[in-house]
């Protein structure tokens, strides 16, 4: 196995990994676990992402859905474009290239001692899942923790078994709502903000972490602001067309920010005025 590293920025060279499992989460979403062929990448943190390369097709930015504990890497991917469709179709034993980790993640440990509200829309639960893991592993370090999940239908909630364990485990409050009812759904129907209204916020240092469609994040952040959250304690994870991960290719610009290096996690002070501008 010859790896010749000469002059080009090594950060642009995919590090080859083998797929060790591909578990379906919903109709269009799968969780893939990779292991490196040789040396792996530096370990990523909550909210950071890797560029995943599908041979012959291209790369897509995907956040960690589990913070690496060994040399395996876990990503949850929704099949939407040509790259993500190819990635979701991979079988164990097949190969991908990974580059990363990139970007600014969730400053979760800075929130220790405070109430935490996590709001996830659909696949938006994936980048927040490592945050839940961190909280559960160090539960006594955090005060009240609420996770609000919104999805189109009950079939669109990823990590369903795990969510049930969180829900019944008693260590955090889990609230779920879906946009559309279906025959075997006994839970709430409605938008995420309705669920959020039921969360009692009494710690002025409360921290919120939100990931979902921008329209959802706008309304959630506005509501959190109205209910007394400090704007810099409201954190969102942004998505743009991250292509290089290094702030060099320009594609992921949002105003003056390169989402790949200034984000993807940003506070509402910075992200709010930008999210509000159409087609920025």
């Amino acid at each position, binding site marked *: *196995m*010859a*790896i*010749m*590293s*000469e*002059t*080009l*920025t*090594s*950060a*642009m*060279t*995919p590090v*080859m990994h*083998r797929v060790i499992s591909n578990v379906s989460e919903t109709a269009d979403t799968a969780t893939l676990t990779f292991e490196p*062929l040789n040396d792996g990448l530096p370990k990523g943190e909550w909210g950071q992402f890797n560029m995943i390369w599908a*041979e*012959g*097709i*291209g*790369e897509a930015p995907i956040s960690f859905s589990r913070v690496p504990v060994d040399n395996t890497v876990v990503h949850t991917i*929704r099949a*939407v*474009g040509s790259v*993500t469709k190819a990635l979701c179709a991979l079988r164990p034993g*097949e*190969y991908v*290239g990974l580059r990363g980790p990139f970007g600014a993640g969730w400053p979760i440990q800075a929130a220790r001692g405070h109430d935490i509200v996590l709001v996830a829309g659909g696949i938006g639960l994936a980048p927040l899942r490592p945050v839940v893991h961190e909280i559960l592993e160090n539960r006594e370090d955090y005060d009240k923790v609420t996770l609000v999940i919104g999805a189109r239908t009950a079939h669109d909630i990823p990590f369903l078994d795990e969510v049930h364990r969180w829900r019944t485990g008693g260590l955090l409050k889990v609230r779920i709502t879906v946009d559309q009812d279906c025959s075997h759904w006994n839970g709430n129907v409605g938008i995420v903000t309705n669920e959020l209204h039921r969360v009692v916020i009494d710690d002025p240092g409360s921290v919120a972490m939100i990931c979902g469609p921008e329209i959802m994040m706008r309304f959630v952040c506005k509501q959190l602001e109205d209910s007394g959250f400090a704007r810099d304690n409201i954190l969102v994870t942004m*998505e*743009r*067309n991250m*292509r*290089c991960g*290094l*702030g*060099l*290719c*320009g*594609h992921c*610009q949002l*105003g*003056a920010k*390169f989402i790949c290096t200034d984000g993807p996690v940003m506070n509402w002070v910075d992200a709010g005025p930008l999210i509000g*501008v*159409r*087609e*920025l």
Partner: protein
Amino acid sequence: MGTSGRVLSVDGLDSLIRSISAEGYRVLGPSVVDDLIRITDISGVADLPAGVGDVQTAGKYAIRQRSDGALFGFATPADTWKKYMFPPRVRLQSIAVPDGDEVVEHPPQDDRPVALLGVRACDLAALRTHDRVLLDRVPDTDYAARRTGALLIAVDCHTPADSCFCASMTTGPTVREENAADLILTELLDEHRFLVRSGTEQGAALLEGLATTEATDEDTRAAAIQEQAATDALTKSLDTTGLADLLKQERNNPIWKQVAETCLSCGNCTMMCPTCFCVSVEDEADALAGRDDRVRRWSSCFELDYSYLHGGSIRESIPSRYRQWLSHKFSTWWDQFDTSGCIGCGRCVTWCPVGIDVTESCKTIQEHQGQGLM
């Protein structure tokens, strides 16, 4: 450095080109190719566009005959130096498929150092701007390899075009930073000769090896008169006071629709811009060779795909893409790199097929500030 001027004859310039070629440099400079002044390989003064000037205005470019024998009697070439420092297409890696057991990174393909002859003050500013983008953060090793060994021979601009607005962007027409290039030449036309000053030790050593005479007061006076005339010849201007903030403040102003009304989103402006740095990395799979090349190519914020995000594009409308381009050049570039993204060379004005003028766009925004929401 030796900033006291020396005088070099036209023959002396020819010797300079020949001696640096002999030293192993690939000399690139202006030459007439297909009725355009392009940047190409130069082997002597005979290759330079003697007596050829240019006419550049919004949406128009033509060469013209001059009444003198000026070798640098044009404003800017119909090319950028970027083409050589940051090539349009660079192969980054070849990866053996399917298992990627061999990943080969490709070094820059032409390792001969280049000498850039006839670089304008505006284009020197463009190179400095690219240095900030491509070297000061995550160093782009390909750019660094090409750029660090490059010899810069600047020539002050004595004939700006209608498209030019370098004075407004404080980059030209005359080279001000004495260390901005290895050698800085001023072409004097009454009796054809060059005033030369060195900006670096390498430039000083080169100058030492050339047959020059000491500049007289008359030479210096002639250069000063010419410099003033060049500055006066700049017809286009832009007041950049508060512009960076204004463009952010006016993001939702409906005037953007009018500003970009005729924009075709062709991306010519970004291809001709000497500071645009956006790239895309694409896969070129060769199934027979069992190999996949990852190729980096210039990209443009005018491509619909540029802002692709799960199934669609963020900037679907052309005005939103034009707003991105203009705001990046004159506003957000400051936040990102603490300098302007525009250096006032006017190429985007000249090469826009519908003649959109960025200075006019900025003025329109300035005139319509505070008016409504898009």
